[in-house]
């Protein structure tokens, strides 16, 4: 494997030495571009008190290309589909190499705090959300209790 760019080493060191509250990210021993991530559900959101597992991969072209991120924990959210894929502008068209692993994970945490059913990825969830927001939020809470139990 080619040597790891300095920027990735620096980012990894800082994630460990100065972690973001409510977020952990740890590289796999056998692949330092592949991270195991947890994000705590934001307070006052339907995901509160849940701990969500994600995986993150830095492609060869990082930071010219955005990291690839996916939820591993089942989650009921209009911008996250059944395979855990995330619809978030900074992961696609609005990526900038000034962003980092930590800022991306913070953006994902913010997405949990403010679901956006008008820009959906999981269409059926978004429809539920628009039709009956209260019921959708209740379902998101239930899924959080069921699947996102802290370990």
């Amino acid at each position, binding site marked *: *494997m*080619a040597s790891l760019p300095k920027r990735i080493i620096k980012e990894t060191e800082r994630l460990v030495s100065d972690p973001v509250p409510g977020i952990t990210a740890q590289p796999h021993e056998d*692949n330092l571009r*592949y991270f195991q991530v947890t994000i705590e559900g934001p307070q006052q959101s339907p995901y509160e008190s849940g701990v969500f597992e994600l995986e993150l*991969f830095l*492609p060869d072209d990082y930071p010219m290309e955005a990291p690839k991120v996916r939820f591993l924990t*089942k989650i009921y959210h209009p911008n996250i589909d059944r395979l*855990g894929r995330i619809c978030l502008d900074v992961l696609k068209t609005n990526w900038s190499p000034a962003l980092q692993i930590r800022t991306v994970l913070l953006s994902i945490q913010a997405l949990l705090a403010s679901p956006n059913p008008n820009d959906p990825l999981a269409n059926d969830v978004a429809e539920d959300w628009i039709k009956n927001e209260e019921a959708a939020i209740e379902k998101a809470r239930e899924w959080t209790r069921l699947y996102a139990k802290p370990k």
Partner: protein
Amino acid sequence: MSRVPRSFRLLEELEKGEKGMGPESCSYGLADSDDITMTNWNGTILGPPHSNHENRIYSVAIECGEEYPDQPPQIKFVSKINLPCVDQITGEVKKNQFHTLREWKRSYTMETLLLDLRKEMALPTNKKLPQPTEGSNF
């Protein structure tokens, strides 16, 4: 080149399959769109022209295990087919008798596998093999 983890590699393949960016002679997609492990896939192969397979559409089931893509997936025909590398009872493609599986490389994809099976059908030694009735399954 860095090693793309299994899940992101499978998501790439899924997107390619979903958008129909691949060749027309084969297709593939998740068997269960809810399966976060992305283990089981369905595929189809369009029989090659100028052979007994012409105009037939073969269904296959593919299983990408934990070690994919370091290890090849398991693949079996759902549609009945007469090919030397296919077990005539289970429909399974026998790893030792099919070069793409036997000499699997990490860079190979499910698409590689389906296209190579199609080439196998078109081999001079295979293309005129008598075939079971169209539409029968293993």
